């Protein structure tokens, strides 16, 4: 914030002048820092500067907002909420009981592609009202154990899912225990759509956070069965569903990547989804959604940034104009000494 006033360091120069005659040989070393006379730029809020700042911000913001909104609108997104529909009518009164029953709970959904979707198409599952950020939950993991085969018994943070049948659980903790276990299969026109489940997790996680030689052990062997089971012959670094799940979400509504469809989907394509409805979100009235989405330079479909930019940009321009009007209607000389009451005539009372 600078007001191109050439007053920078004028104060310093002034005081240096005034002290010049007092300088003599006895005078100790002079340094601008110790005398608090470092050259300084002293901007003030002049109307011109403030108005142009607001104007500039507004002018920058509106194009960015348009671009962001455009990007968000470009994204094609299919959202299918299925947690109620996938419960047979007769069980709708007691969903929790149904979901907790052993056995397969298949469900078929049909999706219509509203617009052409270019590959890669990301398949997400979205959970609502699921507190992955709950303190009891988010802490309940052992990074050491996940990374290192030797640290299998390092389960101190994992309570209450640390030990089962007297042996440590690998991977331990509530997060792993509650691993999402609905499965999806996609077909288009009765033709299987291949779903790439490789590379859905962060590369850094696969390589550094989850050990190549750490295998699931003793997992889901306790009295309470939480979520998915893991194949004990595959190392954790390749259990990408688990890796994705273990990246806890900060919000109670979140999407997690399930896989990628690597073919383009055409407009009005119908896609059959055969899913296994296993995961219990019914006890806490959580929603489950299946999401197919393309992506843009800003990420997925999210109008927030675009709208926010347009709003803020608009307000800035409005403020700039308002200040201009006020300035023109009611000009005010800056630094007018008559505003200093001690310069007024004290005889007035």
């Amino acid at each position: 914030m600078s007001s191109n006033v050439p007053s920078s360091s004028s104060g310093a120069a002034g005081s240096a002048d005034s002290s010049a005659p007092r300088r003599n040989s006895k005078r100790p070393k002079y340094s601008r820092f110790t005398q608090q006379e470092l050259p300084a730029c002293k901007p003030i809020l002049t109307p011109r500067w403030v108005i142009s700042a607001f104007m500039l911000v507004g002018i920058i913001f509106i194009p960015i907002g348009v671009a962001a909104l455009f990007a968000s609108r470009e994204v094609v997104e299919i959202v299918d909420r299925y947690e109620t529909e996938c419960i047979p009518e007769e069980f709708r009164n007691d969903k929790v009981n149904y979901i907790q029953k052993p056995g397969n709970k298949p469900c078929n959904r049909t999706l219509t592609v509203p617009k052409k979707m270019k590959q890669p198409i990301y398949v997400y599952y979205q959970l609502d009202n699921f507190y992955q950020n709950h303190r009891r939950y988010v802490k309940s993991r052992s990074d050491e154990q996940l990374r290192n085969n030797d640290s299998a018994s390092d389960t101190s943070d994992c309570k209450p899912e640390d030990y089962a049948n007297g042996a440590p659980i690998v991977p331990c903790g509530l997060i792993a225990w509650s691993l999402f276990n609905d499965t999806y299969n996609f077909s288009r026109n009765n033709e299987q759509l291949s779903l790439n489940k490789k590379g859905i997790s962060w590369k850094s996680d696969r390589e550094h956070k989850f050990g190549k030689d750490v295998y699931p052990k003793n997992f889901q062997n306790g009295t309470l069965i939480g979520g998915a089971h893991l194949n004990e012959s595959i190392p954790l670094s390749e259990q990408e569903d688990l890796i994705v799940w273990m990246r806890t979400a900060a919000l109670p509504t979140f999407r997690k990547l399930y896989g990628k469809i690597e073919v383009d989907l055409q407009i009005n394509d119908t896609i059959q989804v055969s899913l296994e409805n296993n995961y219990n979100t019914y006890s806490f009235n959580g929603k489950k959604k299946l999401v197919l989405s393309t992506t843009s330079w800003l990420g997925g479909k999210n109008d927030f940034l675009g709208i926010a930019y347009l709003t803020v940009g608009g307000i800035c321009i409005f403020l700039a104009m308002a200040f201009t009007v006020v300035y023109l209607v009611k000009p005010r000389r800056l630094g007018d000494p008559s505003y200093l009451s001690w310069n007024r005539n004290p005889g007035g009372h």
Partner: protein
Amino acid sequence: MKRYVYINDDELSQDLYCDNRISNRKYTLLNFLPKNLWEQFSRFMNQYFLLIACLQLWPLITPVNPASTWGPLIFIFAVSATKEAWDDYNRYLSDKKANEKEVWVVRQGIKKHIQAQDICVGNVVWLRENEEVPCDLVLIGTSDPQGVCYVETAALDGETDLKTRVIPSACMGIDFELLHKMKGVIECPIPDRDIRRFDANLRLFPPFIDNDLCPLTIKNTILQSCYLRNTEWVCGVAVYTGNETKLGMSRGIPEPKLTAVDAMIDKLTGAIFVFQIVVVIVLGIAGNVWKDTEAVKQWYVLYPKEGPWYELLVIPLRFELLCSIMIPISIKVSLDLVKSLYAKFIDWDNQMIDQETSTRSHATNTAISEDLGQVEYILTDKTGTLTENRMIFRRCCIGGIFYGNESGDALKDVELLNAVSSGSSDVIRFVTVMAICNTVIPVKSKTGAISYKAQSQDEDALVQAAACLHMVFVNKNANTLEINFNASIIQYEVLDTLEFTSDRKRMSVVVKDCQNGKIFLLSKGADEAIIPYACAGQQTRTFTEAVDQYSQLGLRTLCLAWRELKEDEYQDWSLMFKEANSTLVDREWRLAEVCQRLEHDLEILGVTAIEDRLQDGVPETIETLRKAGINFWMLTGDKQNTAIQIALSCNFISPEPKGQLLLINGKTEDEVGRSLDRVLLTMRITTSEPKDVAFVIDGWALEIALKHYRKVFTELAILSRTALCCRVTPSQKAQLVEILKSCDYRTLAIGDGGNDVRMIQQADIGVGISGREGLQAARAADYSIGKFRFLKRLILVHGRYSYNRTAFLSQYSFYKSLLICFIQIFFSFISGVSGTSLFNSVSLMAYNVFYTSIPVLVSVLDKDLSEKTVMQHPQILFYCQAGRLLNPSTFAGWFGRSLFHAIVVFVISIHAYAYEKSEMEEVSMVALSGCIWLQAFVVTIETNSFTVLQHLAIWGNLAAFYIINWILSAVPASGLYTIMFRLCTQPSYWITMFLIVVTGMGPVLAIKYFRYTYRPSKINTLQQAERLGGPILSLGNIEPQPRSIEKDVSPLSITLPKNRNPVYEPLLSDSPNSTRKSFGSSTTFDFFPSQSRLSSSYSRNCKDN
């Protein structure tokens, strides 16, 4: 209680008293840790942080790694402890040096070389020239045949002149060899800290002369830490050793002073603490409710059905820990740091160096610079503070004839010179008294020039003047004085010296003229201590008039008198005097009583007038500070008339008709009471008048007023902007400070002498002038300056900047802590009110200690207005005095700002990073970077002047934030691994940052601009004027007004106490105004004071514009 010291007795008293080991240390190696920790934990803040840190050790409740609190806590403690340890180590080293110094001591009758720490009470210690005295000694022998030695007592009282010390009469003439074998007993009081008194007796055992009690005074001692000068050797008996010496007893650590700003910060901290408790309780209850209703349904959380008994407490305690960062742990460290820098700036200031003596200003107390900017009352001493304390003999009145009235210098007055040379007896006697009635020591240098070592500047001036009048005081050998008058030597034998005390206000000597054997009493003293004792029949009117006339000119007057004593009268009196001199209890009082018996029926010779010139720049300084709204009180030991004159000449009070002087006097309770009421009434009425009203009170009336009319006097003190208190004692000075302090005023006491020490220590800020009266005041003071005029710069520049800077720094510290804390609180609402921390431990710790501390620390270089502008518009100090920049309402502004910014950061972060992006670590880093960006811009917008350092700190800090997090992101083991790289490559991250900054700062800037332009404070207006170069700079110019006493010779409109009705008739006005106090407090909470209110307050400050 008494102490008996047996001289040279090796067996006795060995273990009775402590040895001579000096210890200034606070700690020992063993008790350092516990004692230091105990001291640090006696502060509330530290206790609080310790509690938080301990709670964090409980893994069930801690939201973050305990290191995030323990780290800073241990760091802070380590810093303070290291500082203490270093100081203590240095003290240990200097103690060790003193303790291991080799001295000669007599042991078993043989002189031995031992270490100073092994000296025992009763040992005979030998010292040579220029050696330091290792313990308190009673002299028993010197190299000088007259038994005199000279010591320099600078380390003790700061006085640089040499003082004479004599051996007791009983020891006079004892042979050098015999001193080894001397035996005797000294009866002395138990150790105390009074360096001016030593009431003891000495009795020598046979074979040493008479078995008589010999009284000892402080003149017979040499005290620890003095230096022996001009004397080949002395020997003395150790009476007090080690930490029981006078010096050791007077050592002590003064109470730490708390500034108003500190008190306000404590208050605000308390408020935040209460707020925090409320938040914790609310969230704790909400958390427990959520847990019981919702969390039981969230099967994946797996809450046990039956929890432990303390389960209800777990969530509130978690929130307590989460919210503990609301109170910034770094604030104390930051404040200590910047405060020591403020002090350094004072030390470094080249414009506050006294060029004559090249003494720098020094801030002894580094913690109270902000208070300088909030001073409301300045209580100043007169002599040496306002004046130079360089006494010059100017006029005199001898036997009714005035000398020096025309030329202004009696020494150049031809009539006086003629009178001296013609041998007029009155004049000769007068000059003789000038020359010998004193305690001055003439020192002959090798070239034959005589210089005088005097303890009092007045005596020095008189002796010098006498020398100019051909009465040269050439030599003083023990009891014999030699005077060279017109080339003939006259000798006098000094029989007794009746010393000056501030109660007696006079001193006398009894001398015997060696020529004719006549005995004379020569006295000099204040007029009221001499004139009433004039012999019957002498006309004292001319003298009273002379005193009045001189004091109206602001000259210091002394009356000189003499009386011839009859041999037997003197003998009788001498016995009484001797007896009084050897009493141990109330010796001073007894002596005064005995002296009184001799000092009567005096023949008054004349009056001397000594000028004490005003220091440079005193009137301008007072005027400027006056305009800044500071009230001045002058407390002086001088006479009323002199005080009034000095006050007039230095703009302290204005002459009629602009000023009005109200007199409070009276000798009895009733009189004083009536006088007080009358003055108070006048005062109440005239507060609405644009008039300088001041009251004058003398010590006697003050005593009564303080005793019986404390309430009335306090009210008067509040109403009065100016007061002159004359003839006050040091303790009264301190009492006055206390009265003002009890009315909640910030007081600054400034003085230069030992009599100001109590006042200086009592006041909120003590300023000492390192002047001619020694360094006593400067040592006791929080600040020492070389000249009074530096006070202006000290207050207006250093005090004001310090206050502004601290106000910003402290509120900013709260702002940034609240900001991050609010985000945590908001986050808890979307994390099941379970007390999850959004931020990781490292970020939290670094945020408080590092990311946000560095940029704000350079605000110590910020200047809202240039020094020149402040000096020209001292009225601007009002903002500091009234605490406009740091008070609950400004704090509420910062609180609101942090709430607003937290909402901005939180809402934008969770919306921009929703759905598939909502990864815990990423969202946390987005929110954290949002906070860092915002705080960089907040510091920017609140900074008034940018130097290179500011830019470096603000933007460098921002860069450092990214660099540090990139480094953390490169470590695979850290939780942050790759997060920051991931974010920085996302366009959405940068767009989010930009949005946060603009949304957060836009409204702040808009509001600030609006206020700045349409509701400018005085500071803003001056800033604009200063930077746009408006006409304002020429308006408030203060013309230097050189004034000196000489020019104001014309009689003044102030009528003096002779007027029976000393209270002036008030100019009646029908609106008794509200007191200053009431509107002071009402404006405190006012963000934009109405113009009228401000102007009315300023009008009082600017009456003389």
